[in-house]
């Protein structure tokens, strides 16, 4: 079971919403589309659903070209960021609606709605109308409608974005379980890197209408192919700074130096961009291979379990993320330590310097 996008593009007037895209999605695990707002996640999802036609290219489903096939005939499910349910029907009728359209027997409808409602813990709510449900229950109803249809392609477009934090966590844990062993291709769009990591599976990082990388989620996180992917797949944003490599040394801002080790050691001398995830920039020395930065603290965010400091260094803003509550003072010069063994190096073309 695969969904394939072959050279798909989407133009709107003079704007390119999706640049030429090739993608093969399978049933193993979630397929996460990760990107900021306007990166093209929803456009891709609409084309996968058949709600919009690609401007060029083809969409193949299970070895068949479905490019011109409308959404009604594609057997797909879609769950939106907004809680979309039929307001005049109760939860039972809402969940049953895809089966009613498919003209299933009364017994089958009752049995399957019962099962699906139990799966989503909606059984006590079956008689209520959507307006009488909490946001989480409304979105569960929408999910139940998507699940009961038994479609081969389930598209989830930021389904948790409008839920409050607790509900989001709860439903996010449930989601992989709901679609386990169903043989469905699940596409999940999100703007949060942490959500992609929690859901696992495969991730496609999207930036300005381009898929910058597609592969196993953990791999895409650990070894982003280029700087843009690393930026998309990092929250707080990844620190990036220009460095030069001279002989066995990496030099930043003229005075910060560290020995070139690992992949960068074999790379030719020249200009590179170093990328350091914020949790490798810490106020305490974490490893022997740490380089010291003196930064002026601009903004601090304390969440209790972790502290985030934005500091300026040679005109650039850096972000440091560490455990616990740190005694940061805005305006002070603070020492930060960078674990250089965790640095990613990108060449002039933005590509990762790899072994």
């Amino acid at each position, binding site marked *: 079971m695969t969904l394939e996008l072959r050279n798909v593009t989407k133009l709107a007037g003079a704007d390119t919403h999706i640049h030429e895209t090739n993608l093969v999605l399978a049933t193993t695990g979630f397929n996460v589309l990760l990107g900021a707002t306007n990166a093209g996640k929803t456009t891709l999802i609409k084309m996968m659903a058949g709600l919009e036609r690609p401007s060029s290219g083809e969409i193949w489903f299970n070895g068949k070209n479905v490019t011109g096939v409308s959404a009604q005939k594609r057997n797909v499910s879609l769950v939106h960021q907004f809680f979309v349910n039929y307001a005049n*029907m109760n939860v039972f009728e809402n969940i049953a*609606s895809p089966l009613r*359209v498919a003209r299933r027997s009364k017994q089958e409808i009752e049995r399957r709605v019962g099962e699906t409602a139990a799966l989503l813990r909606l059984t006590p709510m079956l008689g209520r109308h959507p307006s009488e449900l909490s946001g989480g229950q409304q979105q569960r109803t929408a999910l139940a409608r998507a699940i009961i249809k038994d479609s081969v392609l389930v598209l989830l477009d930021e389904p948790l974005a409008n839920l409050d934090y607790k509900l989001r966590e709860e439903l996010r844990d449930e989601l992989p379980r709901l679609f386990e062993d169903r043989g469905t291709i699940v596409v999940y769009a999100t703007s949060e890197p942490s959500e992609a990591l929690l859901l696992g599976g495969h991730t496609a990082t999207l930036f300005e209408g381009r898929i910058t990388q597609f592969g196993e989620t953990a791999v895409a996180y650990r070894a982003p192919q280029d700087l843009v992917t690393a930026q998309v797949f990092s929250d707080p944003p990844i620190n990036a700074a220009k460095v030069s490599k001279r002989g066995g040394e990496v030099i930043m801002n003229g005075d910060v130096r560290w020995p070139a080790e690992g992949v960068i050691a074999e790379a030719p001398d020249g200009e590179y961009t170093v990328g350091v995830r914020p949790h490798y920039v810490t106020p305490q020395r974490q490893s022997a291979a740490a380089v010291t930065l003196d930064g002026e603290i601009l903004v601090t965010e304390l969440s209790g379990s972790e502290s985030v400091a934005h500091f300026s260094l040679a005109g650039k803003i850096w972000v440091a993320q560490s455990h616990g509550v740190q005694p940061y003072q805005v305006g002070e010069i603070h020492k930060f330590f960078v674990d250089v063994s965790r640095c990613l190096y990108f060449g002039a073309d933005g590509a990762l310097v790899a072994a």
Partner: protein
Amino acid sequence: MNKTQNQRAWLFVAPVLALVAFNALIPLMTVVNYSVQETFGNNIFFWQGVGWFEDLLRSDRFQAALARQLVFTAIILTIEIPLGVAIALTMPRKGPWVSVCLVLMALPLLIPWNVVGAMWNIFALPEVGLLGKAINSLGIDYNMTRQPMAAWFTVILMDVWHWTSLVVLLAYAGLIAIPDAYYQAAKIDGAKPWAVFRHIQLPKMKQVLTIAILLRFIDSFMIYTEVFVLTGGGPGNSTTFLSIDLVKVALGQFDLGPAAAMSLIYFIMTLLASWVFYTVMTRNDAR
């Protein structure tokens, strides 16, 4: 117990009290006063009790006007509400044509009511009016000043032309408030256009349609100006609706007592019907 007395509060309420008094209470009570008395002029009044009310409710003339009124309002509602919704459904939801359509729709609502009557009067003239001449040239004998059926036809056509726009605009407002996500969800569910209308558009339009029905009911029930200018209630009494009859009694014959009684009955009927409509239509939301 220490209670502060502050009479100044009355000062703040006074303007509103005066406004409501002169605007609503005093005129209404004057009408109530007239409705229970008989006068022969010279400001001499005789106590009549509920006599006028009894006479009126029994009178053939009033019952006939009421029947005409009910038939008229029923016809108006059954034409204008579905027609308005249908037009709203065909209007574009985005693009440059939206404003064109909205202006076209708003035009009839901007014309003064007596002008509407005068326009249609000329429009329907059998010799020179576009409508009258056209119908007659089709071989149909049409003259609204002589034939009650023709008069009804013209009055209803005029009201539909004048007021369907209001329903269209209200229904349209309800329609454009529906997010695209609902249509997409319906598409993905494989819903047919009728199902989309029945389960998405109609429920979302319910609130505005309630208002539309209520407004059209009240307005058509009180219709006066357009019909007065168009037919003057004729031919005969065939288009004499309640308010036309009321004015004939009150000003034409200067029967203040019966006219006042009639006003009150009329007022209570409108109020009652509006309340019933509203309660029935919002019943489901109260759950």
